[in-house]
Protein backbone atom coordinates (compact mmCIF):
# COMPACT_ATOMS: atom_id res chain seq x y z
CA UNK A 1 0.00 0.00 0.00
CA UNK A 2 1.16 3.52 -0.83
CA UNK A 3 2.42 5.17 2.35
CA UNK A 4 2.32 8.91 2.97
CA UNK A 5 4.10 10.71 5.78
CA UNK A 6 2.24 13.94 6.52
CA UNK A 7 4.30 16.40 8.58
CA UNK A 8 2.27 19.17 10.21
CA UNK A 9 2.98 21.85 12.77
CA UNK A 10 -0.52 22.88 13.83
CA UNK A 11 -0.32 26.22 12.01
CA UNK A 12 -3.21 27.62 10.03
CA UNK A 13 -1.60 26.42 6.81
CA UNK A 14 -1.72 22.84 8.15
CA UNK A 15 -5.44 22.79 7.33
CA UNK A 16 -4.74 23.27 3.64
CA UNK A 17 -1.95 20.70 3.76
CA UNK A 18 -4.39 18.22 5.32
CA UNK A 19 -6.96 18.98 2.58
CA UNK A 20 -4.40 18.25 -0.14
CA UNK A 21 -3.31 15.08 1.65
CA UNK A 22 -6.91 13.85 1.73
CA UNK A 23 -7.18 14.43 -2.02
CA UNK A 24 -3.91 12.67 -2.82
CA UNK A 25 -4.41 9.81 -0.36
CA UNK A 26 -7.83 9.08 -1.83
CA UNK A 27 -6.48 9.32 -5.38
CA UNK A 28 -3.64 6.92 -4.66
CA UNK A 29 -5.47 4.71 -2.15
CA UNK A 30 -2.80 5.53 0.40
CA UNK A 31 -2.33 5.07 4.12
CA UNK A 32 -1.24 8.19 6.02
CA UNK A 33 1.00 8.68 9.04
CA UNK A 34 0.57 12.11 10.60
CA UNK A 35 3.77 13.41 12.18
CA UNK A 36 4.51 16.35 14.41
CA UNK A 37 8.11 17.12 15.28
CA UNK A 38 8.64 19.27 18.30
CA UNK A 39 11.39 19.80 20.81
CA UNK A 40 14.10 21.83 22.37
CA UNK A 41 15.06 23.57 19.16
CA UNK A 42 12.28 25.97 20.06
CA UNK A 43 14.44 27.46 22.79
CA UNK A 44 17.61 29.41 22.42
CA UNK A 45 20.57 27.61 23.96
CA UNK A 46 21.28 30.51 26.31
CA UNK A 47 17.83 30.16 27.78
CA UNK A 48 17.84 26.39 27.79
CA UNK A 49 21.04 26.00 29.83
CA UNK A 50 19.36 27.95 32.61
CA UNK A 51 16.57 25.44 32.95
CA UNK A 52 16.68 22.63 35.46
CA UNK A 53 16.25 19.02 34.35
CA UNK A 54 12.89 18.75 36.08
CA UNK A 55 11.68 21.83 34.28
CA UNK A 56 12.86 20.43 30.95
CA UNK A 57 11.02 17.21 31.61
CA UNK A 58 7.85 19.16 32.27
CA UNK A 59 8.34 21.17 29.07
CA UNK A 60 8.91 17.99 27.08
CA UNK A 61 5.71 16.49 28.43
CA UNK A 62 3.80 19.63 27.53
CA UNK A 63 5.28 19.57 24.02
CA UNK A 64 4.39 15.92 23.62
CA UNK A 65 0.80 16.64 24.70
CA UNK A 66 0.56 19.58 22.29
CA UNK A 67 1.97 17.44 19.49
CA UNK A 68 -0.49 14.65 20.22
CA UNK A 69 -3.31 17.16 19.98
CA UNK A 70 -2.09 18.46 16.61
CA UNK A 71 -1.70 15.01 15.03
CA UNK A 72 -4.88 13.73 16.71
CA UNK A 73 -7.03 16.47 15.19
CA UNK A 74 -5.49 15.92 11.74
CA UNK A 75 -5.96 12.15 12.03
CA UNK A 76 -9.65 12.67 12.85
CA UNK A 77 -10.14 14.60 9.63
CA UNK A 78 -8.39 11.92 7.56
CA UNK A 79 -10.28 9.08 9.23
CA UNK A 80 -13.59 10.83 8.56
CA UNK A 81 -12.75 10.49 4.88
CA UNK A 82 -12.13 6.78 5.26
CA UNK A 83 -8.33 7.02 5.08
CA UNK A 84 -6.32 4.61 7.21
CA UNK A 85 -4.30 6.86 9.51
CA UNK A 86 -1.56 6.53 12.13
CA UNK A 87 0.04 9.23 14.27
CA UNK A 88 3.56 9.95 15.50
CA UNK A 89 4.99 12.69 17.70
CA UNK A 90 8.74 13.23 17.87
CA UNK A 91 10.02 15.22 20.82
CA UNK A 92 13.73 15.71 20.61
CA UNK A 93 16.70 17.95 20.26
CA UNK A 94 16.79 17.86 16.49
CA UNK A 95 15.54 20.57 14.15
CA UNK A 96 12.12 19.75 12.67
CA UNK A 97 13.46 19.07 9.16
CA UNK A 98 16.00 16.58 10.51
CA UNK A 99 13.30 14.82 12.50
CA UNK A 100 11.00 14.64 9.47
CA UNK A 101 13.77 13.28 7.22
CA UNK A 102 14.81 10.73 9.83
CA UNK A 103 11.26 9.44 10.11
CA UNK A 104 10.75 9.50 6.35
CA UNK A 105 13.89 7.56 5.53
CA UNK A 106 13.62 4.88 8.21
CA UNK A 107 9.93 4.17 7.50
CA UNK A 108 8.17 2.51 4.56
CA UNK A 109 7.03 5.82 3.12
CA UNK A 110 6.67 6.62 -0.58
CA UNK A 111 5.89 10.29 -0.18
CA UNK A 112 6.38 13.06 2.36
CA UNK A 113 3.83 15.89 2.37
CA UNK A 114 4.35 19.18 4.17
CA UNK A 115 3.43 22.83 3.89
CA UNK A 116 5.65 25.51 2.45
CA UNK A 117 4.95 28.11 5.13
CA UNK A 118 6.78 27.38 8.28
CA UNK A 119 8.64 30.55 8.84
CA UNK A 120 10.69 31.18 11.92
CA UNK A 121 11.57 34.80 11.58
CA UNK A 122 14.70 36.32 10.21
CA UNK A 123 16.88 33.23 10.60
CA UNK A 124 14.62 31.46 8.09
CA UNK A 125 15.59 33.98 5.44
CA UNK A 126 19.18 32.82 5.72
CA UNK A 127 18.83 29.16 6.55
CA UNK A 128 15.91 28.30 4.30
CA UNK A 129 12.56 26.91 5.25
CA UNK A 130 11.80 23.56 6.84
CA UNK A 131 10.16 22.43 3.60
CA UNK A 132 13.20 23.35 1.56
CA UNK A 133 15.47 21.49 3.94
CA UNK A 134 13.24 18.41 3.85
CA UNK A 135 13.28 18.44 0.05
CA UNK A 136 17.05 18.07 0.37
CA UNK A 137 17.50 15.75 3.32
CA UNK A 138 15.13 12.89 2.53
CA UNK A 139 15.52 10.16 -0.08
CA UNK A 140 11.75 10.03 -0.52
CA UNK A 141 9.45 11.95 -2.86
CA UNK A 142 8.40 15.27 -1.34
CA UNK A 143 5.23 17.24 -1.95
CA UNK A 144 5.40 20.82 -0.72
CA UNK A 145 1.93 22.33 -0.48
CA UNK A 146 1.79 26.05 -1.03
Amino acid sequence: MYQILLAIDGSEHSEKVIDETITIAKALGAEVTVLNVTGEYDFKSRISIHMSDEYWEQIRQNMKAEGEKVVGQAAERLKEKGIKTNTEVLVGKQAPADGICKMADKGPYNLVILGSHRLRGISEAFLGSVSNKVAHCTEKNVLIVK
Partner: protein
Amino acid sequence: MEKILLAVDGSEYTGKVVEKGLALAEGLNAEVTIATVVGEYVFSPRVSLQFSDDNWDRINKHLKKEAEELVEEAAKPFRDRGLHVITKAVIGHQAPADAICKLAGEGEFDLIVLGSRGLRGIKEMFLGSVSNKVVHMGCTSVLVVK
Protein backbone atom coordinates in the same frame (compact mmCIF):
# COMPACT_ATOMS: atom_id res chain seq x y z
CA MET B 1 -5.86 19.71 -7.37
CA GLU B 2 -7.17 19.86 -10.91
CA LYS B 3 -4.36 21.15 -13.09
CA ILE B 4 -1.01 19.42 -12.95
CA LEU B 5 2.15 20.52 -14.71
CA LEU B 6 4.75 17.81 -15.33
CA ALA B 7 8.16 19.33 -16.01
CA VAL B 8 10.43 16.92 -17.89
CA ASP B 9 13.92 17.17 -19.35
CA GLY B 10 14.62 13.77 -20.88
CA SER B 11 16.81 12.67 -17.97
CA GLU B 12 16.29 9.41 -16.07
CA TYR B 13 13.79 11.27 -13.88
CA THR B 14 11.41 11.83 -16.77
CA GLY B 15 10.05 8.27 -16.47
CA LYS B 16 9.47 8.70 -12.75
CA VAL B 17 7.76 12.04 -13.21
CA VAL B 18 5.50 10.55 -15.90
CA GLU B 19 4.70 7.58 -13.65
CA LYS B 20 3.70 9.89 -10.77
CA GLY B 21 1.74 12.08 -13.14
CA LEU B 22 -0.18 9.08 -14.44
CA ALA B 23 -1.13 7.93 -10.94
CA LEU B 24 -2.30 11.42 -9.98
CA ALA B 25 -4.10 12.06 -13.27
CA GLU B 26 -6.06 8.83 -12.98
CA GLY B 27 -6.77 9.21 -9.27
CA LEU B 28 -7.65 12.90 -9.33
CA ASN B 29 -9.15 13.08 -12.79
CA ALA B 30 -6.75 15.97 -13.27
CA GLU B 31 -5.85 17.90 -16.38
CA VAL B 32 -2.21 17.22 -17.20
CA THR B 33 0.23 19.37 -19.13
CA ILE B 34 3.70 18.05 -19.92
CA ALA B 35 6.29 20.74 -20.50
CA THR B 36 9.95 20.93 -21.21
CA VAL B 37 12.03 24.07 -21.25
CA VAL B 38 15.09 24.54 -23.40
CA GLY B 39 16.98 27.49 -24.66
CA GLU B 40 20.14 29.43 -24.87
CA TYR B 41 20.90 28.89 -21.20
CA VAL B 42 22.27 25.46 -22.19
CA PHE B 43 25.30 27.21 -23.63
CA SER B 44 27.78 29.08 -21.53
CA PRO B 45 28.09 32.77 -22.45
CA ARG B 46 31.58 32.20 -23.79
CA VAL B 47 30.25 29.69 -26.29
CA SER B 48 27.13 31.60 -27.25
CA LEU B 49 29.01 34.82 -28.02
CA GLN B 50 30.68 33.02 -30.87
CA PHE B 51 27.45 32.04 -32.63
CA SER B 52 26.09 34.07 -35.52
CA ASP B 53 22.37 34.81 -35.70
CA ASP B 54 21.98 32.18 -38.41
CA ASN B 55 23.57 29.65 -36.17
CA TRP B 56 21.26 30.62 -33.35
CA ASP B 57 18.24 30.12 -35.57
CA ARG B 58 19.40 26.68 -36.55
CA ILE B 59 20.19 25.77 -32.95
CA ASN B 60 16.82 27.01 -31.73
CA LYS B 61 15.02 25.04 -34.43
CA HIS B 62 16.95 21.94 -33.47
CA LEU B 63 16.23 22.47 -29.77
CA LYS B 64 12.56 23.02 -30.50
CA LYS B 65 12.34 19.78 -32.49
CA GLU B 66 14.09 17.82 -29.74
CA ALA B 67 11.85 19.37 -27.10
CA GLU B 68 8.71 18.54 -29.04
CA GLU B 69 9.83 14.94 -29.47
CA LEU B 70 10.59 14.72 -25.79
CA VAL B 71 7.18 15.93 -24.58
CA GLU B 72 5.37 13.81 -27.18
CA GLU B 73 7.26 10.75 -25.96
CA ALA B 74 6.37 11.58 -22.36
CA ALA B 75 2.72 12.06 -23.33
CA LYS B 76 2.46 8.60 -24.93
CA PRO B 77 1.58 6.64 -21.76
CA PHE B 78 -1.25 9.12 -21.10
CA ARG B 79 -2.62 8.84 -24.61
CA ASP B 80 -2.31 5.05 -24.50
CA ARG B 81 -4.66 5.09 -21.52
CA GLY B 82 -7.05 7.49 -23.17
CA LEU B 83 -6.13 10.38 -20.88
CA HIS B 84 -6.21 13.89 -22.20
CA VAL B 85 -2.81 15.56 -22.08
CA ILE B 86 -1.42 18.86 -23.31
CA THR B 87 2.22 19.20 -24.38
CA LYS B 88 4.37 22.30 -24.36
CA ALA B 89 7.90 22.79 -25.64
CA VAL B 90 9.17 26.10 -24.35
CA ILE B 91 12.15 27.68 -26.05
CA GLY B 92 13.53 30.83 -24.57
CA HIS B 93 16.22 32.86 -22.98
CA GLN B 94 15.16 32.32 -19.41
CA ALA B 95 16.42 29.69 -16.98
CA PRO B 96 14.25 26.54 -16.77
CA ALA B 97 13.08 27.16 -13.19
CA ASP B 98 11.87 30.66 -14.06
CA ALA B 99 10.11 29.36 -17.14
CA ILE B 100 8.43 26.54 -15.18
CA CYS B 101 7.15 28.93 -12.51
CA LYS B 102 5.96 31.34 -15.18
CA LEU B 103 4.07 28.56 -16.96
CA ALA B 104 2.56 27.40 -13.68
CA GLY B 105 1.41 30.92 -12.86
CA GLU B 106 -0.01 31.74 -16.26
CA GLY B 107 -1.81 28.40 -16.55
CA GLU B 108 -3.04 28.57 -12.93
CA PHE B 109 -1.70 25.13 -12.18
CA ASP B 110 -2.34 23.57 -8.77
CA LEU B 111 0.74 21.39 -8.74
CA ILE B 112 4.12 21.09 -10.43
CA VAL B 113 5.71 17.63 -10.59
CA LEU B 114 9.42 17.50 -11.37
CA GLY B 115 12.46 15.32 -10.84
CA SER B 116 14.89 16.10 -8.03
CA ARG B 117 17.81 16.11 -10.42
CA GLY B 118 18.02 16.47 -14.14
CA LEU B 119 20.42 16.42 -17.00
CA ARG B 120 22.72 18.85 -15.36
CA GLY B 121 22.98 16.42 -12.48
CA ILE B 122 26.66 15.76 -12.10
CA LYS B 123 27.52 19.06 -10.51
CA GLU B 124 24.42 18.93 -8.34
CA MET B 125 25.37 17.23 -5.12
CA PHE B 126 21.91 17.17 -3.61
CA LEU B 127 18.79 18.64 -5.13
CA GLY B 128 19.23 19.70 -8.71
CA SER B 129 19.42 23.39 -9.34
CA VAL B 130 16.13 23.50 -11.23
CA SER B 131 14.03 21.66 -8.65
CA ASN B 132 15.78 23.53 -5.86
CA LYS B 133 14.99 26.86 -7.45
CA VAL B 134 11.36 25.94 -8.15
CA VAL B 135 10.94 24.87 -4.51
CA HIS B 136 12.57 28.11 -3.36
CA MET B 137 10.46 30.28 -5.62
CA GLY B 138 7.34 28.75 -4.12
CA CYS B 139 5.23 29.53 -7.17
CA THR B 140 2.77 26.72 -6.41
CA SER B 141 2.67 23.33 -4.68
CA VAL B 142 5.59 21.21 -5.84
CA LEU B 143 6.08 17.45 -5.87
CA VAL B 144 9.79 16.60 -6.06
CA VAL B 145 10.21 13.08 -7.41
CA LYS B 146 13.35 11.24 -6.27
